[in-house]
């Protein structure tokens, strides 16, 4: 089990670094796909089948295909792109640090209600239990997430419409 973890971690980190360092944007995207697959492997090692499969469907199957689609159409093959100015670089670093802080705080502070189900003897990896947790204990955040997605979807539609009117 531990060797499997090390192999998966090596693949995850290696492909993540290759994503950043490869010159060709298409190669970057393909390395990112491999990275997502290895993360799904990590989920499977937690026995979280639902999370692993949904991760593959959403990230590798939809988002990365759209990403590849855009990159292929834009033809970003020229190397030596101009680097962004210093301010935006600093802003990027700061916002990344803030995100990392939030994520760390979440992982350290978060309660884990699955333990209640585990003590009850329920199989807390099954979809039924997952659905109960999502729609009972986390009803409000779950609905907020769906509203957030709806807002971003409407925003995307509006943006594309606006361009159309200007032309």
């Amino acid at each position, binding site marked *: 089990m531990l060797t499997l973890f090390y192999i998966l971690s090596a693949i995850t980190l290696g492909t993540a670094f290759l994503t950043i360092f490869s010159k060709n944007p*298409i190669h970057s995207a*393909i390395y990112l*796909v491999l990275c997502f697959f290895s993360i799904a492997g990590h989920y499977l090692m937690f026995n979280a*089948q*639902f999370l692993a*499969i*949904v991760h*593959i*469907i959403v990230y*590798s*199957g*939809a988002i990365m*295909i*759209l990403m*590849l*689609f855009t990159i*292929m*159409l834009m033809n970003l093959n020229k190397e030596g792109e101009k680097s962004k100015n210093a301010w935006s670089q600093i802003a990027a670093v700061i916002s990344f640090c803030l995100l990392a802080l939030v994520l760390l705080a979440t992982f350290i502070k978060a309660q884990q209600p699955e333990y209640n189900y585990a003590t009850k003897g329920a199989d807390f*990896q*099954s*979809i039924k239990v997952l659905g109960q947790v999502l729609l009972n204990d986390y009803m409000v955040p779950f609905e907020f997430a769906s509203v957030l997605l709806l807002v971003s979807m409407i925003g995307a539609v509006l943006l594309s419409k606006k361009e159309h009117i200007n032309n």
Partner: protein
Amino acid sequence: MEEAIIIEKSVIIIAVFALTMLMAMYSTLAERKIAAWLQDRVGPNRAGKGGILQPLADGLKLFAKEEFVPNTPNKFLFFVGPAISMSMALMTSAVLPWGDKLHLFGRDIILQATDIDVALLYVFGVLSVSVYGIMIGGWASNNKFSLMSAMRAASQMISYEVAMGLSIIALIMMTGTLSIREIALGQNGMNWNVFYQPVGFLIFLICSFAEANRTPFDLAECEAELIGGYHTEYSSMKMGFYLFAEYAAMFISSTILAVLYFGAYNYPGMDWAEKNWGVNIANVIGIFVLFIKICFFIFFYMWVRWTIPRFRYDQLMRLGWKALIPLSIANIIITGIVMLLVD
């Protein structure tokens, strides 16, 4: 006991693999024969009796052809493309049930490679990943027609995947499970899902045509506009892999259609047969019944291919986004209301 399970599962996996290959092989012959029949021709009839050896001859021809690699900066990705297509076409069969169970050597053998809790989602995962084969191959060919074809394939697959997923949600609501085995078991007798979900079935059928890149949705290999589509630059067995993967995917999606909506291996009187003739005979008949259903759907695919002309690209997108998705959402809502009323 552990070894017995490993042997049992290996035998099932190898049998399913061989079967998929065999069906894909003979689907190529069936396609040509059916095309000939619909167009009032004879079809291939030279290799073997009635052309029965034609797939072998085709395979041999593809193996013997010159291996041509275009001048591309991505030789590795050029090789990877067909491999992804083929492996993704074969991976789905791992979660499909081919029969209920056999009673051999004093133990029940479940005729399924693996039954995971999220089998249906696994099928969708594999489907959504399978487009990488076409995309990567088309891009690495370094040919603008191949690239255009890859783009078309990707946008088409993403569009129809949404409608497909939504159409299956109504089915999941009804059956209350994501395990394909339980869905198959729930259709015992004549309780086939197609009678309860006719609209869902229709949407799923149309979307599986689009997912398998078959006419009228084969915009990715539209000869009149794009030469050969994404496999323009491919030759020899790499090209053979792409063609073969299409037929393997067709077999698998016919199986999914038969299992999800057309009662899987269930047939009228299965319980009676099980009681009077024993589990084994009833289930062997069940396997044959499943294969008859699969063969019907494969024939249906071919029938449509030689009957309906190809859509225009904007028609394809309009059908996907403006007709099928709203229809499947309405189907979900109506299913929910009816379920509430019946309760």
